[in-house]
């Protein structure tokens, strides 16, 4: 568990990795405090996995420094290895072996005696709801079960730092929630988790700090609140009964929400981006705007409120420089439209 060491779980300075001519990781500085979930958010190919692989001693950095609990990942690789474990994007257990055999093998490789390894394997399989599947080859497992055996393998010896590389990519919502619950349980026991994800939603659910990474560079870093504030609070999609009322409705929304309003192709639809506000939540402001519309006799057939999607975070962070939350002019062909507004739970997954 957490040892009394002042060093942060992860500390990198100017980390670089090049593949051929491309700088997959191009000067990454990160500090991950111990005992928290740290989210590394970015699209496919942003360099997230490469960063994790360097921190887990699987890849040698081409430049810069990386320390895990104060140990250099190159010079002190073995010390680092004894304190971290990694669950990769793809099954990191042997698919030809059964669940029990996989955990037994790892138990032995981690230095447990035969009997201790057997007991630990049985306990883990039980705890992860895999007791019935224990004797089956992992290749027969469902996606969710496979991810669970992966994580079980990673915590066979409770690590000080757990790397989870896109742990829920490709999982159904139920399995995804299970993985989230496991991550929470792991952190509650004092393990630091470094989580990479493409989903803002996932980072939001689990991480306390988030680094947004794009083309090998950290383009934003901060707490969840800071990050969201830089993108705006979300957007609201409205469908009116009468297309003729749309211009008036747009005007009312603009005033009530202090927001960019965009006309959709659908003649009765409108999208409004809600700016960040310290006094009211996006929902409260949207409700206020709806009340205003109703008061002025504009009938709303349908509406949905959504979070900013990762796409929007990215547009805001990369497309418009470092100015932060300046409202954007909607351009046809960009994703400035109703992303994130298709469901009322508003957790649109882009990327």
């Amino acid at each position, binding site marked *: *568990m957490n040892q009394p060491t002042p060093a942060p779980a992860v500390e990198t300075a100017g980390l670089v990795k090049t593949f051929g001519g491309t700088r997959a990781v191009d000067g990454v500085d990160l500090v991950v405090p111990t005992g928290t979930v740290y989210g590394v958010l970015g699209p496919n190919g942003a360099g997230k996995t490469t960063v994790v692989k360097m921190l887990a*001693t*699987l890849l040698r950095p081409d430049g810069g420094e990386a320390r895990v609990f104060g140990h250099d990942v190159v010079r002190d690789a*073995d010390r680092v*290895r*004894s304190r971290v474990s*990694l669950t*990769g*994007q*793809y*099954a*990191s*257990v*042997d698919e*030809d*072996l059964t669940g029990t*055999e996989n955990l037994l*093998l*790892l138990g*032995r*490789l*981690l*230095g*447990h005696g035969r009997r*201790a390894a057997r007991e630990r394997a049985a*306990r*883990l399989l039980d*705890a*992860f*709801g*895999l*007791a*019935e599947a224990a004797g089956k080859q992992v290749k027969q497992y469902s996606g*969710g079960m496979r991810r*669970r055996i992966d994580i079980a393998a990673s915590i066979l*010896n*409770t690590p000080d730092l757990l790397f989870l590389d896109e742990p829920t990519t490709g999982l*159904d*919502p*139920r*399995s*995804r*929630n*299970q993985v*989230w*619950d*496991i991550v*929470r*349980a*792991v952190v*509650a*026991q004092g393990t630091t988790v470094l989580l990479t994800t493409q989903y803002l939603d996932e980072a939001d*659910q689990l991480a306390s700090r988030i680094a947004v990474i794009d083309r090998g560079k950290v383009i934003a870093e901060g707490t969840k609140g800071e990050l969201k504030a830089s993108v705006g*609070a*979300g957007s609201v999609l409205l469908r009116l009964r009468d297309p003729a009322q749309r211009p008036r409705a747009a005007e009312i929304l603009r005033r009530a929400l202090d927001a960019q309003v965009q006309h959709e192709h659908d003649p009765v639809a409108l999208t409004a981006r809600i700016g960040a506000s310290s006094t009211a*939540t*996006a*929902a409260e402001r949207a409700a206020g705007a709806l009340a205003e519309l109703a008061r002025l006799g504009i009938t709303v057939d349908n509406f949905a*409120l959504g979070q*900013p999607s990762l796409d929007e975070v990215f547009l805001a962070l990369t497309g418009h420089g470092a100015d932060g939350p300046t409202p954007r002019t909607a351009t046809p062909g960009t994703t400035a439209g109703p992303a994130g507004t298709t469901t009322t739970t508003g957790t649109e997954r882009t990327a």
Partner: protein
Amino acid sequence: MTTDTRPDGTATGTTEIREPTPFSAESVAPVLVTTERPPRPSALTASLAFGWRAVLKIKHVPDQLFDVTAFPVMNLLMFTYLFGGALAGSPDDYIQFVLPGILVMSVVMITMYTGVSVNTDIDKGVFDRFRTLSLWRPSIMVGYLLGDALRYTIASAVMLSLGMVLGYRPGGGVQGVLAGVLLLLVFSFAFSWIWTMFGLLLRTEKSVMGVAMMVIFPLTFLSNVFVDPRTMPGWLQAFVNNNPITHLASAVRGLMAGRWPGAEVAWTLAWAGLLLLVFGPVTMRLYSRK
């Protein structure tokens, strides 16, 4: 953003799929409390654990035994009856000469599957997991080779049994045969490090097989496995007589026939040592750099 933050992330999608075993994350917390972290395993323990894995893979995917049984059997039958009459007067006479040779050829050929296993494992995440463990680093490679040694033993047993049925009568008796097989295993263990290297170096399983064929075919055929090299042109004799496979085949042949081919055994062991010294470190270097 605040409208839909689920307090525990479990509000959606909980009723969609039923898995055979109910699972709830509450059960996970207790297993995390265990903080005992044993010291890292010895080199031997780690190597044996990886060897056990290789054996389990043979158990779960028995088709890989096809290569080590059917192929050698086919070789033995084919070459004995194809060449026997012409080269030695009769298949019966020829098999006394050719069986140890074909045994050597077949086992050396199947060493290439070591490279294929390494390569397929890299493609899967499991290799990454092993590499993040604090272990004696060559143990994973030694593990592959221990599993392979089992396959070589099976192949040898199958071929020798069939040979006996076909009329092979080793003059060295059980001891001679065992000594021959042991020498073959030692050489193959060392020779396999070439394939662990290529397994790490090349991108696909197919390219590993391709390179392996390019190396193994000339090496096994341009030897004394099938015929005495004395009828070959001088330049070819020069190659054949210095080919490690020739030394190995002569040594195995001699041991099984009950002679003690000291020089050939020494040559074979020297080659094995050289291969191990060159390709072992190269493999481990690639492994660390991968």
